[in-house]
């Protein structure tokens, strides 16, 4: 009996062995996961951008900000990031599925996506999975109004862009001593353009602008031909055009202005497109003059100089712009948070991002800090103008490096 009993206690049956292996496997499956999160290896950052589709130009421009980031982050004493690239194909649905795929592939933090609609979809996936998302570019206010805990945006909302844009416009009008009396507002009808359109009605009355909106024209951002839209705007005979565009339509509108022999007093853009390199290079002298009131970089900040130099070395002939700057800053936020968190644990990362306080940055404003909603409420717009293939900053005064040229030189006189 005794022997039998001892024997039973010492012998391990096949069933017990299997159970033990299972338990050990389970423990092994969990334990290294935790260990890995605490390791000091590079943070796996999934960068989701529209690298193809109708927004590919902007997406690929943002990628340049990623490409030049690593040595600068290293020079700032920040940890390495392992970048995983993803293409949203300029589609909301693809953005959603790619985000989910990236998380299942091991991305510990997401960055993206240069479009409000796509970013909204990615934000939902990030929040559901508890993985931090640092938005590089997306202005729709709803994204940070959802009460999300893992979504952060170092980019102004449409409302902030509008408020600053009107403020910057008035600064420019004051400098040149002139202002349009009427404008036609043309905008893309995507998430960003629609948000900006709604915001204008709400924000503009507060700024006592010198002009009224004679007509509002919404159009498809993937439009192939904008001749009718420009003809309609011209028929209203406004002093200036107020625009919320993308790259493709900005070029189409410019071509139509030339063909339809119409040079408004000013082109006042409150979105991307008009300052971008492809716009400058494709249109040459015809690209000079438009004013963009957009989130921009402060050319007088030390880190801006580093970024300009890095971009010039990697991509000669390409001007530093919003796409590069805010994509770089998203990576800066990620690396800074990872350093402070000391871990890739999503909760620790999110907490570290929430406590961000970066003053040595690139964009206009005092620096990068996030409020309770995950929004950097301190980032500011600038007024910039295309000048001989370069971009100069006109306002705010602290970031300015040139005086405005006004009015727009006639397109017909540009040989």
């Amino acid at each position, binding site marked *: 009996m005794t022997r039998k009993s001892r024997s039973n206690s010492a012998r391990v049956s096949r069933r017990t062995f299997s159970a033990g292996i299972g338990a050990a496997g389970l423990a092994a499956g969990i334990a290294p996961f935790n260990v890995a999160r605490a390791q000091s290896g590079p943070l796996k950052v999934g960068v989701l951008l529209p*690298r*193809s*589709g*109708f927004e*590919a*130009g902007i997406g*690929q421009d943002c990628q340049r900000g990623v490409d030049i980031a690593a040595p600068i982050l290293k020079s700032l004493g920040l940890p390495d990031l392992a970048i995983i690239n993803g293409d949203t194909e300029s589609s909301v649905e693809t953005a959603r599925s790619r985000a989910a795929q990236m998380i299942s592939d091991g991305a510990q933090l997401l960055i993206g996506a240069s479009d409000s609609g796509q970013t909204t979809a990615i934000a939902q996936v990030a929040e559901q999975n508890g993985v931090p998302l640092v938005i590089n570019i997306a202005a729709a206010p709803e994204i940070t109004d959802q009460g999300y805990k893992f979504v952060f945006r170092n980019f102004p909302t449409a409302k902030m862009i509008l408020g600053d844009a009107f403020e910057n416009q008035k600064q420019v009008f004051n400098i040149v001593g002139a202002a349009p009396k009427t404008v036609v507002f043309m905008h893309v*009808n995507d998430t960003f353009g629609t948000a900006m359109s709604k915001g204008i009605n709400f924000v503009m009355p507060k700024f006592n602008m010198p002009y009224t909106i004679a007509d509002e*024209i*919404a*159009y*498809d951002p*993937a*439009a*192939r*031909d*904008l*001749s*009718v*839209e420009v*003809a*309609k705007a*011209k*028929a209203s005979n406004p002093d200036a055009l107020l625009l919320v565009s993308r790259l*493709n339509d900005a*070029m*189409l509108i410019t*071509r139509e202005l*030339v*063909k*339809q*022999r119409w040079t408004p007093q000013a082109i006042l853009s409150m979105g991307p497109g008009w300052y971008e390199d*492809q716009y400058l290079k*494709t249109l040459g002298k*015809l690209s000079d003059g438009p004013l963009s009131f957009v989130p921009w970089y402060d050319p007088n900040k030390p880190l801006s100089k580093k970024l300009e130099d890095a971009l010039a070395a990697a991509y000669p002939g390409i001007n530093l712009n919003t796409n590069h700057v805010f994509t770089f800053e998203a990576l800066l936020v990620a690396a800074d948070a990872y350093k402070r968190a000391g871990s890739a644990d999503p909760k620790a990362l999110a907490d570290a991002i929430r406590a961000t306080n970066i003053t040595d940055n690139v964009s206009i404003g005092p620096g990068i800090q996030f409020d309770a909603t995950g929004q950097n409420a301190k980032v500011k717009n600038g007024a910039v103008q295309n000048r001989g293939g370069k971009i100069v900053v006109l306002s705010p005064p602290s970031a300015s490096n040139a005086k405005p040229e006004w009015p727009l030189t006639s*397109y017909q006189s540009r040989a």
Partner: protein
Amino acid sequence: MPFDVYLNVAVAGVLTGLVYGLMALGLSVIFGVVRVVNFAHGEMMSIAMYLAVVLFSAFHLDPLVMLVPIAAVMFVFGYVLQAGLINPFITRPEHSQFLLLVALAIIIVNALLIIFGPDARTVQTSYAYDSFQVGRLIVDASKLYAGAAAILFAALLFAFFRYSLVGKSVRACADNYTGALVVGLNVNRLYALTFGIGAACVGAAGVMMTLIVDVTPIIGPTYTLLAFVIVITGGLGSMPGALIGGVLIGLTEAFAGLLFTPSAKSMFAFGILVVVLLFRPQGILGKRTA
């Protein structure tokens, strides 16, 4: 709104519509004779657009000068495609043909993406920003040249089918397949020839389209859909119907943008399609079939 605005928009709509019409003409010719619905039609046009862009970038060859050579290249492409790939599918079920051509379309889009990348490319001719002013009417020079070339190309095509022996043989194939076989026509060769002509049409339209719009690899599916809307509106298989359909859609898009909202341009074009399908299912100039 001043009258000249309507006039300008109408002229621009007609000129763009003519190029649309030529593009759809290729689809109509192929379907009318070979009875294969070319789901890679817009993608074939994007090949021609890229040929025009590459020739212009590399050798500064004006797209209008390259119209005939590129159309000839596309003819060969279409001929070989039909003879080598599509012909075995002629007698197979329609869904097999559909899948074959959709697959071809996807391959073309992705091949263009790999070769040229996603950025839009354009042709900056010396007249890219020119316009003609007659009184208060301002006509875009590129659109005018493109529209005129479309009319010329379509006229040559009509003449070919009406007066040439080969054209008559092709029509005979379309009218009576069995009869064409009985009288000894080489139907397979004529099918390949027809597909080549359809490809040449869409190639010519693509070359002219580079004067009006930028080209990207993903532009193809949009134009495939547009070609279907035009052909169904004008009458599937009817060559004049394709041209009329093109002009109608061009005008509809232009005036919908002007009078309502530009965002709704496509909606109105599809609205026209729905109305035609409801009240004249065979299309404006299509023949009613039993």
